[in-house]
């Protein structure tokens, strides 16, 4: 009976063929490390956010007079409303956490390189969509930090030449952040995740065209590719278990550490908090914004600090495979960049003083310098490596994989 139904469907829709090509039989490099789990985890968190978000939306009121109270209604009166809300609020942090590691893995192993440029760029688009969604979602609790965060960020667009003021009003729907802003942010916060789902599908189509990269950076011969199922389904599930423990830890034991104290005070346009900080995942970019003395320059630098990742396939001119794994200089650069971006996060968090402003400027210059020096740096490194001879492990890998391909 079941087979008959599947046959009926298969004559009209490539169900079996799709599952076979894209899932059960999808060839995956067998040497993928656990760093390759994070794309799946991001997909999982996306589903989690949509699922909890839809139920939250059933009880939430997108009205500046009711929003704050409706969150308390969810937290106190709705059955397991506290669970939905803490999972969703923690989920935002979890989403950025896995995406940042997913990106760091791509940068470390050079997965953005030919032929995966489009895969990387669709990922870049997903990052922007995620940032937009998170930013708009943060306004919805209508607390002090929600309100003033949205005010500061929408104000940035005022730095645009000529039309700045009009753009700010257009974004807010009013002269200040208010009820109009709240209702449009809610509408868009509900819409964006579905655009993200669409973009994820494009990201996956691109992935399945070029196939997964792997730690060696070399396209493996057929003998070293294994079916996705059951090998990577089980590996992803095990990784999911570990991730869920970390997520559970935050969502159930310390959910309030991820919520700013000031956001427990209802939004008050008449009283500015002494210190406005964005959520942790925006801190490095916020620090870059603050480090540039000129308003327009700061906005441009902040935008560029996010978008510059897209240029990586062209900035990195080295042809040595495997990214930082086999490239000693690039490895130093990667760790230097990691330290720099964490440091910028700290700078973005603390109230600005003369010394932190200076450190912020230095870290900002280093941030861009690392990207901009990469073309020369990677070429010089490549020359050095060719002169010295490739690492034996890499040479052996290239030989064995090219032999395998010939057959």
């Amino acid at each position, binding site marked *: 009976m079941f087979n008959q139904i599947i046959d009926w469907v298969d004559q009209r829709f490539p169900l079996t063929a799709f599952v076979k090509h894209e899932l059960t039989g999808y060839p995956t490099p067998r040497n993928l490390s656990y760093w390759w789990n994070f794309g799946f985890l991001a997909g999982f968190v996306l589903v989690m956010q949509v699922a909890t978000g839809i139920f939250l939306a059933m009880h939430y009121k997108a009205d500046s007079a009711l929003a704050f109270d409706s969150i*308390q209604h969810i*937290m*106190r009166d709705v059955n397991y409303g506290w669970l939905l809300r803490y999972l969703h609020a923690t989920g935002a942090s979890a989403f950025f956490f896995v995406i940042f590691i997913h990106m760091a893995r791509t940068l470390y192993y050079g997965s953005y390189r030919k032929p995966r440029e489009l895969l990387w760029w669709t990922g870049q688009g997903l990052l922007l969509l995620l940032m937009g969604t998170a930013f708009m979602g943060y306004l919805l609790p209508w607390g002090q930090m929600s309100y003033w965060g949205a005010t500061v960020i929408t104000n940035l667009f005022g730095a645009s030449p000529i039309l700045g003021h009009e753009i700010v009003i257009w974004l807010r729907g009013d002269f200040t952040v208010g009820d109009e802003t709240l209702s449009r942010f809610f509408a868009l916060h509900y819409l964006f995740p579905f655009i993200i789902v669409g973009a994820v599908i494009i990201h996956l189509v691109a992935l399945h065209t070029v196939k997964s990269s792997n730690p060696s950076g070399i396209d493996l011969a057929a003998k070293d590719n294994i079916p996705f199922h059951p090998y990577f389904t089980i590996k992803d599930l*095990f990784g999911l278990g570990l991730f869920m*423990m970390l997520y559970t830890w935050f969502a*159930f034991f310390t959910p*309030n550490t991820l919520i700013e*104290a000031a956001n427990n*005070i209802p939004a008050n346009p008449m009283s500015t908090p002494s210190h406005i900080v964005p959520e942790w995942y925006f801190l490095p970019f916020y620090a870059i914004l603050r480090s540039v003395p000129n308003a327009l320059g700061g906005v441009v630098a902040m935008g560029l600090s996010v978008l510059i990742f897209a240029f990586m396939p062209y900035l990195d001119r080295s042809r040595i495979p495997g990214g930082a794994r086999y490239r000693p200089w690039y490895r130093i650069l990667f760790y230097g960049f990691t330290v720099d971006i964490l440091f910028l996060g700290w700078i973005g968090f603390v109230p600005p003083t003369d010394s932190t402003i200076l450190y912020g400027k230095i870290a900002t210059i280093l941030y861009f310098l690392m990207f901009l020096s990469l073309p020369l740096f990677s070429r010089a490194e490549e020359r050095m490596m060719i002169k010295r001879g490739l690492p034996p492990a890499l040479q052996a890998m290239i030989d064995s994989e090219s032999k395998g391909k010939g057959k």
Partner: protein
Amino acid sequence: MKKFLMTLAFSLTALPAFASSEAHLEKVQVDTSPAALERGMDIVTSNCTGCHALKYIHYRDLLGMGVSKKKVDEMRGDKNMDATLVSAMPDDAAMSAFGKVPPDLSLMFNAREGRGNYTYTYLTAFYKKPDGSLDNHVFPGVKMPDALGYSEAADDKQRADIKAQAKDVVSFLAWAADPHEQERLLFGKYIMGYLVLLTGMLYVLKKKIWARLD
């Protein structure tokens, strides 16, 4: 890899901790026992709700906290079970007395940097200035009167008593800010236990399936 994950997880937890470095707050351990919550509630309803409201706390919520039906009935008088703990002082009277409406206390536990430690330290930081006027170390220029009478305390014993009262107040406010916290922690333990078990089994299964490749 582990080290890197740990660093990232650490930076995630450590960042908010920097926030409380401004004032020197005394640490307080919240007491979640029903007796402490009820003591705290008594102090709050006799010393605080004259001016402050707890607008998200209904009388029926107090039943859930563990207060007896009889006592709640006495507290609410002819008010409905669904009525909330409003302040005795109308907003306009508060405006003319203090120049602002005293903040709602339902979320006070979470609404200040330092969380409960802030409220605890604040309540026991009142002192008399040489000119006899009242001030507060944590909140200079405070408008609220010294509700627990810490600045009037005659000796260390009295001060210790007031500190114990402040601790009960903070314990009650912790409950008020997040009434489902105990339920959440219990859930968390069960879920964590389940995940440890499940992940352990998934690991064994993963090893088994991957062994086919050797």
